[in-house]
């Protein structure tokens, strides 16, 4: 789960990481009031969960409270990269001398968190990694020792940071690491971490990704979830314990297991179709689950055929087949459905489906071929 900039900055401020003075506004009037309280030039930043807000016009400057009002009213209610702008952050504009990058992120190879720091801030770190890898330092952190002062010294020296700023960097990175640890973050990023005209370090932007698996012990963070970050259908799926990602194709897929779901999508593509979604119904395939999953798939008007691929394994296929039939009856789906079942009592399961005139397949490739063909028939 990603936090908004303003949410992450509140955590930063509470942890002692310097951030620009400011506040959030949901109306142009509030934006004007904040600007007039701050005095002077302000930055108005759309609070949407997407990268590249600046380039998309989501960050603007205003010299007067009246201008802040006009510019905030243009952003509020508009869409940025398809996401509605419901809030803006109004902050005192900062005179920038230099832009740096600092983050703690999971290093999957090392199985540790890593400090990633760069002298090139304000740009995508992946871009820097491609064009100027020597500008980046990567320092692995031992979870038992935490971030050590010598590691920060090495980071400061490594990016050529002016020595007077080293104590401030010690403080900021120590606080950022502590925040990531205490809040179960898989990413805590400051980009840019700016050197101001009066030689102070300041977090101009803030990004935090909280581990979804840890939300059970971060109740105040899970309450911050932005309903706009997922579509109503995706939320419905998540709450039902179903992983669902909508794509642009015409063949809906219902699969048990994430890896098999991806492989099923790949096979559909291999045989000339395009998957309409990724959907993992999780363990087992009880009727209520199948029904919910089917409703979610059919909520996509592009879907012309559905491929259900269940590797039952230990699960009895006749039970799965009954679940599918009950769900189909409930939902009343009118489009072609192909079912591929493997597991205990496979023949009985297929028999039940055959009698209900549901197309069945013995293998994944056969199922994908049949689904692609029936989607084309439906289109023609």
């Amino acid at each position, binding site marked *: 789960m990603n936090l908004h900039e303003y949410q992450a900055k509140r955590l930063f401020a509470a942890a002692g990481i310097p951030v620009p003075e400011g506040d959030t506004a949901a109306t142009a009037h509030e934006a004007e009031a904040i600007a007039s309280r701050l005095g002077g030039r302000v930055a108005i930043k759309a609070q949407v969960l997407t990268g590249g807000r600046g380039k998309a016009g989501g960050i603007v400057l205003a010299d007067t409270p009246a201008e802040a009002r006009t510019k905030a009213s243009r952003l509020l209610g508009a869409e940025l990269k398809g996401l509605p702008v419901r809030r803006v952050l109004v902050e005192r504009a900062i005179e920038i001398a230099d832009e740096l990058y600092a983050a703690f992120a*999971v290093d*999957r*190879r090392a*199985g*540790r*968190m890593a400090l990633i720091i760069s002298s090139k801030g304000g740009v*995508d*770190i*992946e871009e820097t990694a491609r064009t100027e890898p020597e500008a980046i330092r990567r320092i692995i952190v*031992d*979870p*038992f020792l935490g971030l050590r002062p010598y590691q920060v010294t090495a980071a400061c020296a490594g990016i050529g940071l002016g020595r007077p700023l080293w104590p401030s960097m010690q403080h900021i990175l120590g606080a950022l690491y502590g925040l990531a*640890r205490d809040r*179960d973050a*898989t990413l805590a990023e400051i980009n840019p971490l700016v050197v101001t005209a009066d030689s102070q370090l300041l977090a101009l932007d803030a990004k935090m990704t909280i*581990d*979804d*698996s*840890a939300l*059970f*012990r971060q109740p105040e963070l899970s309450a911050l979830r932005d309903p706009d970050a997922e579509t109503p259908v995706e939320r419905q799926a998540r709450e039902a314990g179903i*992983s669902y*990602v909508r*794509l642009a194709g015409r063949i809906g897929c219902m*699969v*048990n*297991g*994430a*890896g*098999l*779901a*991806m*492989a099923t*999508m*790949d*096979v*559909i*593509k*291999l045989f000339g179709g*395009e*998957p309409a979604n*990724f959907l*993992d119904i999780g363990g087992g395939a009880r009727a209520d689950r199948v029904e919910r999953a089917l409703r979610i798939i059919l909520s996509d008007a592009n879907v012309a055929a559905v491929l259900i691929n269940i*590797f039952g*394994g*230990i699960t009895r296929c006749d039970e799965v087949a009954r679940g599918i039939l009950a769900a189909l009856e409930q939902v009343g789906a009118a489009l072609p459905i192909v079912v591929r079942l*493997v*597991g*205990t009592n496979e023949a009985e399961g297929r028999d039940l489906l055959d009698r209900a005139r549901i197309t069945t397949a013995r*293998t*994944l*490739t056969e199922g994908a071929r049949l689904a692609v063909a029936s989607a084309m028939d439906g289109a023609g």
Partner: protein
Amino acid sequence: MSILVDASTRVLVQGITGREGSFHTRQMLDYGTNIVGGVTPRRGGETVNGLPVFDTVQEATQETGANAAVVLVPAPFAADAVLEAADAGLSLVVCITEGIPLWDTLRVLRYLQGGPTRVLGPNCPGITVPGMAKIGIIPGHIHMPGSVGVVSRSGTLTYEVVWALTQRGLGQSTCLGIGGDPVVGTTFVDALRLFEADDQTEAVVLIGEIGGSAEEEAAQYIAQGMTKPVVALVAGRTAPPGRRMGHAGAIVSGGTGDAASKIAAFQAAGVPVADHPEQVGDLLREVCG
């Protein structure tokens, strides 16, 4: 022989009194696995499937001589269960539980670093030595004994591939899932090393997916140090960037971890990559001559 599990493996089930724990204990027993007991705090003294239940792993180990454990406890308690098994001196801990907080995994694996305990998972389906034992939740009947080693980041996709191998008469030496989380205790490279050293294994099937660089690291190891033929399958060619595909670790982010780069890495290492699960067996026959 096999890897990680053999005839001397004596298994405890952590979380044996739970719904999943008792069900899969029955399945493992039916397959012939030497399950010697279970652990659930505050339930010591009970029996499940005729097996004794203990309050602690320490006590269970002393009483039963267990040397391995399978963790089937809910995510908030799973990290503790793995640490408890390690502290009791078990040499293999198979962690099936999905949804363990990442920071818990980081600390657990750090604690186990350099010690005698190997962790498989978390978020993995377990390990099967066909005809001998299965630890975890992989259906037993899909296997047949043979000489192909199978290692995978997935669950049901592994079953799909193994089932297809069995139907083509290609038996397996050991099948293991390493887990779908971003950080896991046993990597592809660890498993490949073990298969390379295993007499029974003549070829290896590696089933990867999008996210991270474990496949690229495996390809590098294969190119440098592996004499046995390897065939790969990579799931997620059609996965869009920036979206998590079910598994916590299955995400293409910042232009890294996509299927194309993993497939290219395998091909550069001379590893044929199957287009779909049923093709894996055909490619194996080709590389094995």
